[in-house]
């Protein structure tokens, strides 16, 4: 009996032009979102490939042109980057807010990382139309449009009593009709994602998790709509109520949450770190060598016996005051990261009041395109920069004869590798 009921309601719904139009619109938006997401990921991958090639050539040129280790260290740029994950096409997340590529040098690092500031991007989500946006923000609107008049339109047409009395069981009508609508909508929204996931070689467990999360989310919205649709009000009133709830939870609560978080947590700006570090670096030109070297050996005691200067300018001194610049900026940088982490945690609390935001956080976490992923990438840059210093300091402080072969051992940045 259940298959006959499903067939009946499915056929009935697909004969309705309004339902068909909404389903086709949802399909079109989903296809568009997957396409734009894929385009963006392809553009990022192309940028990385182009920069990798240019970066290698640039370093090779520098190596040919320079005749000392300090010169090579100073003039060489090193590309660091966080490649988009296979799932990034579906949830671009904060990759357009947080930088995902840098060209760093052996100079003080913190200012190179924090040249710009970021807020709570997951709370200001009306941005790019990616799959995460379509599913979290637009799918509820489709559910509301499809379900708000589930009962009201039948009441208005005088069919409600006839349908209730005719249905062979209570489940065979309203819950089934609503369920089929949501199943059809889920299908048209998820189908392009599945194709995209296949094309981007997304691991099966991630596809299954995203599918499950999206279905749970849509089921939650559908349950709310189903409940409200049973109220004895005209369809426009019910639609207004549901759209009001959508507006409140999707935009107003996140916006208010963002304001509250920004006002409640005080912390340094990225520009502050940049300024402190640059002042420390620039100020070092005016200070005695010993001042910079004393500060330097506090964190690098290994080089305490190599701080003597034999000329007015030596690269070891220059890089030492960049190291000291990072040391001066370190507490501010640490505080900046702590504040960022706290804001992210608080945004997580606000997200529980906004299912759309919660879903976006979940999807961007899975896609590793969120603030956490950005912080992890920053740490990778720090680790890599540390490796560069570890490579160059012996060359700068012990001044061995210049050999270009030495640079074969120079560290290269290893980006995060995603399992496929």
């Amino acid at each position, binding site marked *: 009996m259940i298959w006959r009921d499903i067939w009946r309601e499915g056929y009935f719904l697909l004969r309705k032009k309004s339902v068909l139009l909404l389903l086709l619109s949802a399909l079109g938006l989903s296809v568009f979102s997957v396409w734009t997401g894929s385009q963006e990921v392809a553009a990022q991958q192309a940028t990385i490939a182009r920069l990798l090639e240019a970066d290698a050539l640039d370093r090779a040129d520098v190596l040919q042109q320079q005749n000392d280790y300090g010169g090579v260290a100073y003039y060489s740029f090193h590309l660091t980057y966080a490649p988009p994950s296979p799932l990034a096409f579906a949830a671009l997340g904060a990759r357009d807010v947080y930088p995902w590529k840098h060209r760093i040098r052996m100079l003080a690092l913190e200012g190179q990382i924090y040249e710009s500031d970021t807020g709570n991007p997951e709370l200001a989500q009306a941005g790019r139309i990616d799959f995460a946006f379509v599913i979290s923000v637009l799918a509820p609107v489709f559910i509301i449009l499809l379900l708000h008049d589930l009962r009201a339109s039948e009441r208005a047409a*005088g069919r409600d*009593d006839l*349908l209730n009395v005719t*249905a062979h069981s209570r489940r065979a009508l309203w819950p089934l009709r609503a369920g089929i609508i949501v199943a059809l909508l889920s299908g048209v929204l998820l189908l392009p994602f599945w194709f995209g996931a296949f094309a981007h070689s997304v691991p099966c467990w991630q596809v299954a998790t995203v599918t499950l999360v999206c279905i749970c989310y849509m089921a939650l919205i559908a349950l709310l709509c189903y409940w409200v649709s049973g109220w004895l009000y005209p369809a426009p009133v019910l639609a207004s109520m549901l759209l009001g709830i959508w507006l409140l939870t999707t935009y107003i609560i996140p916006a208010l949450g963002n304001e509250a978080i920004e006002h409640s947590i005080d912390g340094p700006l990225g520009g502050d770190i940049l300024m402190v570090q640059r002042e420390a670096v620039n100020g070092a030109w005016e200070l005695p060598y010993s001042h910079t070297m004393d500060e330097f050996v506090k964190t690098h005691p290994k080089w305490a016996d190599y701080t003597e200067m034999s000329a007015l300018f030596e690269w070891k001194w220059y890089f030492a005051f960049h190291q000291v610049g990072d040391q001066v900026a370190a507490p501010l940088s640490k505080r900046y990261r702590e504040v960022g982490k706290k804001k992210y945690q608080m945004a997580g609390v606000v997200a529980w009041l906004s299912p759309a935001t919660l879903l976006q956080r979940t999807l961007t976490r899975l896609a590793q395109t969120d603030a956490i992923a950005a912080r992890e990438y920053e740490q990778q840059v720090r680790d890599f920069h540390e490796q560069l210093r570890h490579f160059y300091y012996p060359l700068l402080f012990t001044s061995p004869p210049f050999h270009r072969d030495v640079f074969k051992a120079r560290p290269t940045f290893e980006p995060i590798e995603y399992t496929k």
Partner: protein
Amino acid sequence: MTDPVISADALHVSVGNKTILKNVSFTARRGEVLALLGGNGAGKSTTIKTFLGLMTPSAGTANLLGQNVQLQPDIVRQKVAYLPESVMLYGHLNAVENIRYFLSLAGKEKTDDDIALALKKVALQPHAWQTRLQSYSKGMRQKTAIALALLRDAPILFLDEPTSGLDPVAIDEFNGLISQLASQGATILMVTHDIYGACHVANRIGLLRHGELVGMFDAPQDGNIDAEVVHQAFTQGLK
């Protein structure tokens, strides 16, 4: 004497502070057509809705085949075909699709021939069968709904103003159908304004006034209820 198929026992229905039915009692046995007559607001439709389980009585019981519909709501789904007043079937489906939809909803299966036969019985022109109902007249929609009620093969029929919107020829044909169904054992409760039509098909006529059953007229063994007598009783009440 068989057991009553439809029985109202001291039925009392209120909505808020307003009493709509007061102490209404009647019975209809197998093969009987019981018509409830009354003016606007007399409680006719409320009586049917109470039997359908769509309204809850504040006192008394509404029973079908000896079972209280409030306690056994499935009896309505299983045994009753309901024809509401001014029924609007689905405009985006044609007559055959509408009938198929509602039959499937009721858990019934009928062949194309069965459906064609029912549509012919209600005199719906065959060229209209595949036309969407949004272009139907009220009478054509009513005929489709009557065909659906016939196809339900239900032992109990509740008809709310069934001839509303039908032309005189269709009304005669409909009355003939009702008599035929009753002779085949169906028990029919209809509410109507149409005194003469009711007298033509009903075995019994109940007269409702302000929620009270103020008169009951039985047909003689070999004839119809006298329409003039019912008309007089009906109009006296209105005066």
